[in-house]
């Protein structure tokens, strides 16, 4: 029994961190938000070069056959640099959905291409988590029609889109079918989300049932929690650094007890989140009976902690934190979006209670 990262996992984190840092700084992020999509492509290529897209894909399909824990470590680094790169859907949720039955024709056909980065995969299941008016999908003898919003990893015109209708996972090949994908503008320019319109598209059934749908959503939630962990961690570090540079009243502001305690409170809230994220990720791989509850708590708790931390860290930066000059707001906004997708905290806590049979 060991509650710690293995050496391999440490190395994975560090190398991903170095790689992203080498291509991605705040000015580049600013350009990206300004519409220059070069960074997206560079990161995509870098990820492929490191073999990351296939992280969860079994070796027989050309992947590394690792788990949600490793996927979360990567997500933490992505969040740390607010890197606009395919991950939660393309490399986590879609592969898990395709692997439900072990091997299958669909798995054999698509997973190798995803692993190689030859195709990108998008997931459009927002309506399962909480459906809004004028959205939703229906299936009519094998053909899906309707609109799904807040689809994830839809930015590299994905070859395949995985979605859920009537409690079943379906796969749509965008090369063969009439699918319209358009980006939905949100506060967070570093995590593109899409509207996907299916115009009576032939859909191949992957697998079905609440269990696999939960499993895919849980993995997504854990990975988003890990992303928020990285984003928050880096906001805290920035706040401390800034407080040790900025002087007012002839002192660095980091020497004022009020600022010290703001930072201490952020650290006290954030530190246990790392263990929570590790545990929930590990649970997805190895503790099936706890995986659902752990995933809900990771998503809900990180959403609250990160949300609060983003506000405090910005305040520590004073006026500069509010301007665009430091780009701190990219971190702030990435947390703002991650908090809401795949279920906001109040809703996810409700699920956490239901999982334990409370109030049902």
């Amino acid at each position, binding site marked *: 029994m060991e509650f710690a990262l293995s050496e391999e996992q440490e190395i994975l984190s560090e190398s991903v961190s170095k790689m992203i840092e080498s291509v991605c700084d705040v000015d580049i992020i600013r350009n990206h938000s300004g519409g220059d999509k070069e960074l997206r492509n560079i990161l995509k290529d870098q990820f492929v070069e490191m073999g990351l897209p296939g992280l969860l894909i079994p070796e027989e399909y050309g992947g590394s056959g690792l788990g949600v824990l490793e996927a979360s470590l990567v997500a933490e680094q992505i969040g740390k640099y607010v890197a606009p790169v395919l991950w939660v859907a393309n490399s986590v949720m879609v592969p898990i959905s395709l692997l439900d039955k072990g091997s299958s024709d669909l798995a054999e056909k698509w997973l190798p291409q995803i692993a190689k980065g030859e195709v990108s995969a998008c997931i459009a299941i*927002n309506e399962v988590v*909480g*459906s*809004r*008016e*004028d*959205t939703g999908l229906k299936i009519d003898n094998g053909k899906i029609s309707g609109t799904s*919003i*807040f689809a994830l990893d839809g930015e590299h015109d994905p070859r395949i889109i995985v979605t859920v209708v009537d409690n079943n996972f379906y796969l749509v090949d965008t090369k063969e079918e009439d699918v319209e994908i358009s980006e*939905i*503008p*949100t*506060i*967070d320019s570093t995590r593109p*989300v899409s*509207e996907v319109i299916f115009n009576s598209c032939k859909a191949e059934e992957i697998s079905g049932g609440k269990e696999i749908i939960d499993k895919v959503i849980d993995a997504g939630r854990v990975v988003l929690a890990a992303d928020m962990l990285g984003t928050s961690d880096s906001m805290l570090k920035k706040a401390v650094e800034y407080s040790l540079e900025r002087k*007012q*009243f*002839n*002192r660095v*502001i980091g*020497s*004022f007890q*009020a*600022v010290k305690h703001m930072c201490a409170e952020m650290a006290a809230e954030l530190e246990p989140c790392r263990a929570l994220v590790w545990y929930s990720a590990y649970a997805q791989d190895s503790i099936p009976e706890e995986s659902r509850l752990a995933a809900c708590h990771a998503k809900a708790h990180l959403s609250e902690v990160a*949300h609060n931390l983003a*506000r405090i860290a*910005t*305040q520590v930066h*004073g*006026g500069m*934190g*509010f*301007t*665009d*000059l430091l780009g*701190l*707001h990219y971190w*702030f*906004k990435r947390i*703002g*979006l991650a908090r*809401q*997708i795949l279920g*906001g*905290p*109040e*809703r996810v806590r*409700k699920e956490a209670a239901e999982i334990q049979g409370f109030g049902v």
Partner: protein
Amino acid sequence: MDLNPGPEYIKFRKEVKSFLSKNNHMSSRASDSAYTADKESNWQEKLIKNGYAARTIPKEYGGFGAEPDVLKSRIIAEEFTESQTPLGMANQGISMLVPTLLELGTEEQKKSWIEKTIKGEIIWCQGYSEPGSGSDLASLQTKGVDDGDDFIINGQKIWTSTAQFADMMFCLVRTEPDAPKHKGISYILIDMKTPGIDVRPLMTMTGHAEFNEVFFTDVRVSKTNIVGNRGEGWYVANATLKHERGMLGDPNQAATRLKEIVNLMNVETINGEKLINNPVHLDRLMRLQGRVLSMSYNSLRSLTASHKGLDVKMGKLIVKLNGCQLNHDLAGFAIDLLGELGTIYGLSNHDHDSGKWQWRYMFDLGLIIGGGTAQIQKNIISEIGLGMPREPKPMLEEKK
């Protein structure tokens, strides 16, 4: 305690209502499609003439010259909000400079500036903060070098909203370099068209440039433009800041937002269920309503007090801290209610609120920081409000 309007006020409310029903088609605000500057200034003039703007500004300075009257002001605010009519111009000139001139300006300064300001003929911006001087405003470095009848001003200001279209700036300048930091500052009125002034928009986290940076290079200003005495600008500015603090965190705004949120909860659904039927959201709504009501009543109490020439010191000191945080929390709640849809920020056919709540959520964070950070507010509350000691000077400052 007597919140009964009484016949006079019932009558007054009728007047306001009938004024609005007759005239609000003439009203104008920048956000209107049919907006024109003329329409707006005509509307402003009409408001002043009827005592719905510049209500308590003396007649000789172009105001309506009414006695302060808490209830009448409240009735006006309520009826204009009710009918969603813009209550005239709101800018720092009207809210901050005019009260300051009335308090500390020379007769000539009052005559030359107040009327034009309240009529919107002159737009002002505020030149206080500098990149190096935020919380420690008194350390500001923008210098005014004495040159006969003038000052030659060099330096930089930041957070100057409306600077891009302002005619004038009320500005803090260090004119006495050798005096202690609080005693070396003058409060100077500067024409923005003076050569050497460069205004650059300042982009914030909202993605918009709600503020500017203003750079001064050898800007020549006549000494007659000082308000108050030379070197006493710090005290003049604090008179102004007092008015600003009164303005930031306005509970009426919170009350309006709460209404918007209730409407939102009545229309928005998730999985077909109205949000208003979610007990957890309702509990949070009620917590917020409790805070909103407390702040509204607190402001009524302060208004009555100032009306009677009294002062509810603590009641005023807390408004900025509580009000800005409350507005921020309300926006955060609205975003949570909207969920994913609440993150949309830009043109989308799935947008339900045109990004309004996100903008507010971010801008309010700026307000929590600006005009005296939350930490500075707490220092003030504990020192001025509770009589606790100031931060002892650290030894390192000695070493200087």
